[in-house]
């Protein structure tokens, strides 16, 4: 596949790995921000190919994982209402709320549908005028423009039976929260390439300067990830701390102007509670007042939800980089992707699920043929 195979070339990967091994002189802790990068690292076995000095800490960049429990419970309550068609990205269906998940709502008779785009939810709303169609609008800056566009279209088309449960989150405030935590171990970031393709990377320059931390905009194919690691290690070894773009085929400093325009039209910044991490000021987007008519949280008065996180789940420590997933006492025993205790075990981007799927054995047991 063009634009993919070129970035999976084993010979080039080994050249990059060799260069990283040559450069590294001491241990460094790098955080890959995005769950898509975690997925690629584990799926391609990149973590096992890097020299032991380079530690990859899996960041909080999985929107499925950080969607607040209260929002999840609200989603379950709305989806269970008669007459509602609840549309969601696929991997949200297995995220546990306080009591059950969207699969169990569907099993109990709720109309829960997997869609690939919010525009699919709009078509469903048009073809089911007597039903309330709700789209679960989650994600980072990456998925937000399409969700914003769906709201604009719904208003333009006069769709009164469409609404969105919005729980968008923003990357830069999360990085700042990690950097200001007293026990922070992260020494460099691989910034999320897809987020930067929308927002650009100028927002990260003050962070790199203020906290003295290299930030490398990084893509998702094996060579992209290795290039990001290489540039981060080079900066760390040289004592530099700037923003570099290792994903120039998709990312510019300014980002995608039209996408940013529709975001500004529809959303406004709000405080957001991150599951497993806690509240981070100005770290989310909510619908602006002029689009509140499409806010599912207001349309469906879901009150008095008792939210209860499993006391056995250490996903917060995992998301902050204090615990590797397999170091959690519940990992692989009480908590599996099949019956997750926490959201990090759900999505294939979730750090715990990625570990479980692809890392559930020690490297020493496999020797090349």
């Amino acid at each position, binding site marked *: 596949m063009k634009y993919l195979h070129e970035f999976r070339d084993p010979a080039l990967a080994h050249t990059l790995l060799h260069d990283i091994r040559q450069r590294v002189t001491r241990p460094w802790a790098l955080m890959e921000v995005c769950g898509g990068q975690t997925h690629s690292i584990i799926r391609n076995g990149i973590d096992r190919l890097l020299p032991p000095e380079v530690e990859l800490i899996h960041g909080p960049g999985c929107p499925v994982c950080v969607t607040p429990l209260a929002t999840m419970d609200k989603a379950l309550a709305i989806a269970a209402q008669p007459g509602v068609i609840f549309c969601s990205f696929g991997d949200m269906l297995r995220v546990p709320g306080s009591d059950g998940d969207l699969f*169990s709502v569907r099993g109990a008779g709720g109309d829960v549908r997997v869609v690939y785009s919010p525009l699919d939810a709009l078509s469903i709303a048009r073809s089911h005028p007597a039903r309330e169609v709700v789209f679960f609008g989650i994600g980072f800056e990456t998925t937000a423009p399409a969700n914003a566009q769906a709201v604009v279209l719904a208003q333009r088309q006069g769709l009164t039976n469409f609404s969105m449960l919005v729980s968008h989150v923003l990357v830069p405030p999360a990085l700042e929260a990690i950097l200001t935590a007293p026990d922070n171990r992260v020494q460099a970031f691989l910034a999320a390439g897809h987020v930067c393709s929308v927002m650009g990377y100028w927002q990260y320059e003050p962070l790199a300067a203020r906290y003295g931390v290299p930030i490398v905009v990084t893509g998702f194919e094996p060579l992209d990830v290795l290039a990001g690691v290489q540039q981060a290690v080079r900066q760390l070894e040289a004592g530099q701390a700037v923003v570099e773009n290792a994903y120039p085929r998709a990312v510019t400093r300014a980002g995608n102007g039209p996408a940013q325009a529709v975001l500004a039209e529809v959303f406004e910044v709000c405080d957001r509670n991150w599951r497993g991490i806690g509240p981070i000021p100005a770290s989310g987007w909510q619908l602006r007042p002029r689009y509140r008519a499409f806010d599912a949280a207001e349309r469906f008065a879901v009150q008095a939800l008792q939210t209860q996180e499993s006391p056995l789940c250490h996903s917060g420590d995992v998301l902050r980089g204090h615990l590797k997933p397999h*170091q959690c006492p519940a990992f692989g025993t009480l908590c599996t992707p099949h019956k997750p205790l926490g959201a990090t075990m759900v999505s294939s981007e979730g750090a715990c699920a990625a570990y479980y799927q692809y890392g559930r054995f020690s*490297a020493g047991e*496999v020797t090349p043929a």
Partner: protein
Amino acid sequence: MNDSAAPDVAGWTCPLPLRDYPQIVLGHGGGGQLTADLVTHLFVPAFHNAALAPLADAAALHLGGQRLAFSTDSYVVRPLIFPGGSIAELAVHGTVNDLAMVGAQPLALSAGMILEEGLPVGLLAHLVERMAAAARAAGVSIVTGDTKVVERGHGDGLYINTAGIGLIPPGIEIAPQHARPGDVVLVSGSIGEHGMAIMSVREGLAFESPILSDTAPLHGLVAALLAAVPDVHTLRDPTRGGVAAALNEIATAAGVGIRLEEQQIPVRPEVAAACELLGLDPLYVANEGRLLALVPAPAAAAALAALRRHPAGVHAARIGDVVAQHPGLVVAHTGIGGTRVVALPHGEQLPRIC
């Protein structure tokens, strides 16, 4: 963190009993862990007997000196007609293939038709004709059947159940439990085509060349393989849950590890592209006309040549080995030289958000 707290791989078993969903969810039909839970914790204890115990694609029954293979499958695909096939071909091929996976020559099928009120009779007639044509082409007869109608809204137009019987030739002993360290893993062609053909229709994806289902009868291919290599240890058609689920089942049943070379697994470019778009892994996507064969290493070249000589196995490939290490686990060497575990899927493979 010390090593003693690391996951105990060799002793790792699924710790949970039947998962506590209070209702059946779609994932229970996904061919992964949820399905396995139902089978292991509910069906097998209730029905247990010697013929059921191996949990092969077909049961082997001893009848008057002959060994009879017996299998059944139900077909609930939507849409009813898709690129490369329809529910009609699936209903014939699926059961023929289940029989073929124990080495049997299929003899006869039954057909149970569950019709939804409102199904156009013209469409039903078309599908029945296709079913008859598929049976003729496969050389099996549909010898008994049943018809039921359910109320509108209680079915997707048409569900079909088929059961089949066949004869297992003397000397053929094929079972998931027979895989041995040193065996070579062969696949009879490129993977993921059926699942992505269905998915591309459902999701409205268009590609330069459309993805066609690989639905096909495999008993001719199996007969050709057995003629060249009678000592085939294990056969499996990787349907729901794909190659990943089939190999995990074999690894668990035989108590062996399986090592895949990801680069050697044939995947057509359009299938790979569709999987990339939807965030799916071709190893987990369903096939309806492919088989996995585990054969002793000395016979591997002959087995591969026999598969490739048959029209249904032209693109057969050697994709891995059976090892004594990591029993119960399937491990893949990735394209860039890393390793990853190819775990049993849990329920439905969920499209990823980004």
